């Protein structure tokens, strides 16, 4: 079971790095989802090792927040895309100058 802890660490690090090195907004959002999912796995593992239901319910609430965050993030990216025909943060800087 310990291998899952290392998997969650690995995926969290991968998501953090992806958030920093990706260039378009959709991919950044995908990497944020990666981090959220790895934290969910941590909660599920803690629930298993402590034998309590609370951590599983935390995962439930995290998933609700992730769903709301994903929907709002995507609609903001779509609104931006309609306005400047681009989904790259670099272009937003050029547009605002």
């Amino acid at each position, binding site marked *: 079971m310990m291998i899952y802890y290392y*998997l969650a*660490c690995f995926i969290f690090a991968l998501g953090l790095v992806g958030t920093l090195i*990706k260039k378009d907004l959709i991919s950044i959002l995908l990497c944020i*989802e990666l981090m959220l999912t790895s934290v969910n796995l941590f909660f599920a593992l803690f629930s298993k090792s402590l034998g309590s239901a609370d951590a599983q319910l935390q995962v439930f609430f995290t998933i609700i927040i992730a769903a709301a965050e994903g929907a709002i993030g995507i609609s903001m990216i*779509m609104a931006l895309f309609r306005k400047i025909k681009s989904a790259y943060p670099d272009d937003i800087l050029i547009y605002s100058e």
Partner: protein
Amino acid sequence: MLDTNLTDVSLCLFAAVFAVVVVFNKNPVVAAFSLLLMFIGFGGIYFRLGSVFLTTIQILVYAGAIAILFVFVLMLMNLEETKTFIPTKNFSLFAGIVAILAMFGILTIIIFNNTDYLATDKLPEVSMNTLFTKLFETYLVPFELSTLLLLGATVAVVFISKKRIPQ
């Protein structure tokens, strides 16, 4: 204590490979589909941990709703493949790899020092009955607040994405 067997290793490899594809891939559509597959792998992991509730939620909400939403939006936007990933300077790739190793190292050391505490399986599995009793008694107020959050998110999405009529 649960022993690690071939199922655990293959589930971990499945999830890890698709997570790597999400980050180090130039095509965003491929990244979104591999995220979907990674979510399904995580559903398998939750099942292996004995939580049917989390497996169901993971497959229905994450794989069925969030990942598919990403795929739909990517089909609408039609991004260029080459601009997605930063290949301009080798320095940023190097810094990325160093950051992965540092973050992974720190978290791994924390877990490795607490192995005895974390790897135990103290109590019997949480049944659906206790889970939902807890959800609707102890966590009733957060549950209701989360429904309000989802309602607010729906209204916000409609407001953000509708066309503004010039006055």
